[in-house]
């Protein structure tokens, strides 16, 4: 049991709105052993080095029995793990294959070609703010855009969102180390149902190819691998970018001086968005790595077989790496944050997420005149790993065409 331990405090919902003091406490012991033998690593260089260490596995079936094995599907789902939960060579084969229709060198234009449609989505979502004096940034803006984007990328019908929304949520929640009593079970059921839905869709695409990468991948992947990949990408596309857009909005509304500057200097978008990814990363930590050998880190030996948590959000605020780390500072130079992780498991969707952020954030603040946050802190989702506001109610004072 981990109750009373620092990991229990981090996952405790009471600390969701501001976990950063806990992370600061955690960094005092860069490599901390919990009573159950799990190791939490929280300082920048140690996290970065471990994420690039071939002795660390993302395949949780390497853990001794008795430990949680996030990412390992129950047998009845009939699905292999998504590639984020695999190691090379399986990982490299899957990721390289999936990348072929998605990014360079084979498809350098794929994401760029989505810009037009996504811009239209942003415009429509913002047009709907007309005449309102308040809005929920999550429901009205930050959630619909990434869902549309990932549907376009995969070739999943946007209209099916009510169908798969619940499954994606349940799956994301099961990544939370303490997802509630039946969270794991619900997660497995959701994976099975979402997997079945996507398998059907993939089968249809095999017979009638359409736009999107699932169609493009049907000749190159087994149905099970492709379905597992589709589950992973749909959930990841669903549950992370929404938080990135919302966190950016929240952070800017909390820093009116920087917001004012941003409205005068649109070029600030690039460093500003990177700084949000450091300051409020949408994936706060990963719980699914395991030591394959004894690993010496900062004077501590992590024994072979230990579960290892890499605390990205804590590392992003390590004062040894980032000067004055709790300050939100878009002028920060050399901002090599871990918001998208690092190493071979660096976020596959990062280029898509950046495109979405760069289409959404400047346009939001160009068009919407905000008069403040209606709740600060806003209500958060339960999930401690994929952390972000459930709602972000804001007061609005007009809309520019």
């Amino acid at each position, binding site marked *: 049991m981990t109750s009373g331990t620092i990991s229990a405090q981090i996952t405790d919902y009471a600390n969701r709105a501001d976990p950063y003091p806990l992370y600061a406490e955690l960094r005092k012991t860069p490599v901390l052993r919990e009573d159950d033998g799990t190791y939490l690593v929280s300082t920048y260089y140690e996290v970065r080095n471990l994420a690039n260490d*071939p002795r660390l596995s993302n395949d949780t079936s390497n853990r001794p029995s008795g430990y949680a094995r996030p990412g390992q599907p129950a047998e009845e789902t009939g699905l292999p793990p998504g590639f984020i939960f695999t190691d090379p*060579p399986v990982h490299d084969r899957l990721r390289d294959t999936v990348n072929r229709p998605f990014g360079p060198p084979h498809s350098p234009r794929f994401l760029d070609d989505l810009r037009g449609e996504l811009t239209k989505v942003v415009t429509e979502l913002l047009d709907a703010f007309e005449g309102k004096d308040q809005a929920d940034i999550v429901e009205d803006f930050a959630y619909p855009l990434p869902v549309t984007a990932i549907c376009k990328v995969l070739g999943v019908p946007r209209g099916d969102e009510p169908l798969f929304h619940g499954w994606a949520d349940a799956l994301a929640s099961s990544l939370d180390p303490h997802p509630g009593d039946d969270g794991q079970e619900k997660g497995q059921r959701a994976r099975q149902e979402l997997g079945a839905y996507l398998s059907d869709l993939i089968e249809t695409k095999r017979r009638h190819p359409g736009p999107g990468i699932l169609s493009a991948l049907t000749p190159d992947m087994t149905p099970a691998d492709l379905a597992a990949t589709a589950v992973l990408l749909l959930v990841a596309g669903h549950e992370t970018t929404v938080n990135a857009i919302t966190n950016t909005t929240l952070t800017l509304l909390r820093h009116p001086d920087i917001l004012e500057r941003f409205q005068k200097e649109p070029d600030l978008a690039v460093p500003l968005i990177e700084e949000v990814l450091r300051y409020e990363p949408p994936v706060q930590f990963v719980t699914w790595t395991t030591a394959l050998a004894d690993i010496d880190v900062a004077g501590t030996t992590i024994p072979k077989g230990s579960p290892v948590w890499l605390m990205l959000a804590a590392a992003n605020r390590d004062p040894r790496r980032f000067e004055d780390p709790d300050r939100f500072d878009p002028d920060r130079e050399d901002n090599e944050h871990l918001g998208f992780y690092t190493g071979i498991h660096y976020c596959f969707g990062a280029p898509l997420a950046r495109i979405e952020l760069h289409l959404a954030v400047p346009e939001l603040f160009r068009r919407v005149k905000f008069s403040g946050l209606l709740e600060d802190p806003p209500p958060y989702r339960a999930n401690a790993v994929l952390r972000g506001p459930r709602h972000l109610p804001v007061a609005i004072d007009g809309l520019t065409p």
Partner: protein
Amino acid sequence: MSADTDVEVLRRQGRIVVVGASLAGLRAAETLREKGFRGSLTMIGDEPYEPYDRPPLSKQALLGRARPEDTALPRRRDIDADWRLGVAAAALDRNAKLVRLANGDTVPYDRLLITTGTRARPWFHPEEAGLDGVFVLRTRGDSARLCRKLAGGVSRVLVIGAGFTGSEVASACRELGLEVTVAERGPAPLVGALGGVIGAVADRLQRRHGVDLRCGISVTALEGDDVGRLRRAHLSDGSAIDVEVAVASLGAMRNTEWLAGSGVAAGSRGVACDAGCRVFDVNGIVTDDIYAAGDVARSPHPLFDYQFLALEHWGNAVEQAEIAAHNMICAGPERRPHLWLPMFWSSQFGVNIKSVGVPSLGDRLVVAQGTLAEERFVAVYGYRGRVIAAASFDGAKWLGFYEQQIATGAPFPPEYRTVDRRTEALEPVDPDFPDPHLPTHGATVTLTGHSPSERRVVFVPSHA
């Protein structure tokens, strides 16, 4: 006057001259300004262009994805320099503290930085080298000329030497759909840099991409037609092939001739300097006003038995330039050593090749991740029981880890389990480097040694 006041005066009103206006020269100049040097700065370069980047010249430029003229190096800041481009430095007068230029001008200095780099080793026969169709590849001009020739319709290209540059040229030509013959004197491509075990993988890669690869073969003569165009190459096995283009990729020569007679320790192996980039004179006494950085410099490295290493690596040029610049305008205790771990990369035949450390020092090799057969792996080199280098094919993201293993002198072979380990136990093999007495073209690291058996006097003081 104390040393500290000297430095203060130098920073305020000193004259710094940089000879060699390429990557190392530019980054040094920028660092000088960044660190508060307010005196005069002169940049001398024999090429007529402002500093440009070379790696794309054998890759994107040949494929037509970038124009050779468009590879100017991005500037980090304004350096407010007096540029003397298109005129080479011809001599160094240490007594008068000035550089003589080829056009007769003289440029006085308080501190001098030597970043003259290397040039391509030309085809050994001058008349044959002058044939229309015979190329080397080092400069922007070389790349532009070769591009034009390839675009003009060519049936077969001969690449002489399968080191990194030669292999990249062969790769680009194949991608352009041209027939390519590669003649390599050694037993396999890249053998000088990575050894025969990895060379065999590069060999397979080239053949699979349709290269007519001929190893253990020298080109003995290039033959022209009556109007001076290349038409045939003769090989050491007695055969001949019809070619219109030959690219001599025979490695680099260090640009040190202009230092002859100056009394600094400069020769064909480069300019010897200490870990702080201060150049030695021929007596082995360190100068305090002359510095060197980049491809032309060689300095002792503590991780490699204090061997003097000369590194033709992009990253080394940048870092050594920054260290040299820092040390030029600092007093003793603030100076920093250049402890860069050798690192280079190449991209050829769709594979990213990367190496850290000094593979050619290795006496043992294991494939720690992946397999040679899949052409996707990390090979780790050991030297006397510790990790000395690693090389990857499409595995560059792991090399940061092995870099730390090298830096901390980790034991070899690595016994721990990793991801993508294909064998239960690692069986070290001989990496199979060629006999060092045989000439090769491939090495991008030159070990120039300091062992007693090599103790030879090669410098003749000018005033003797």
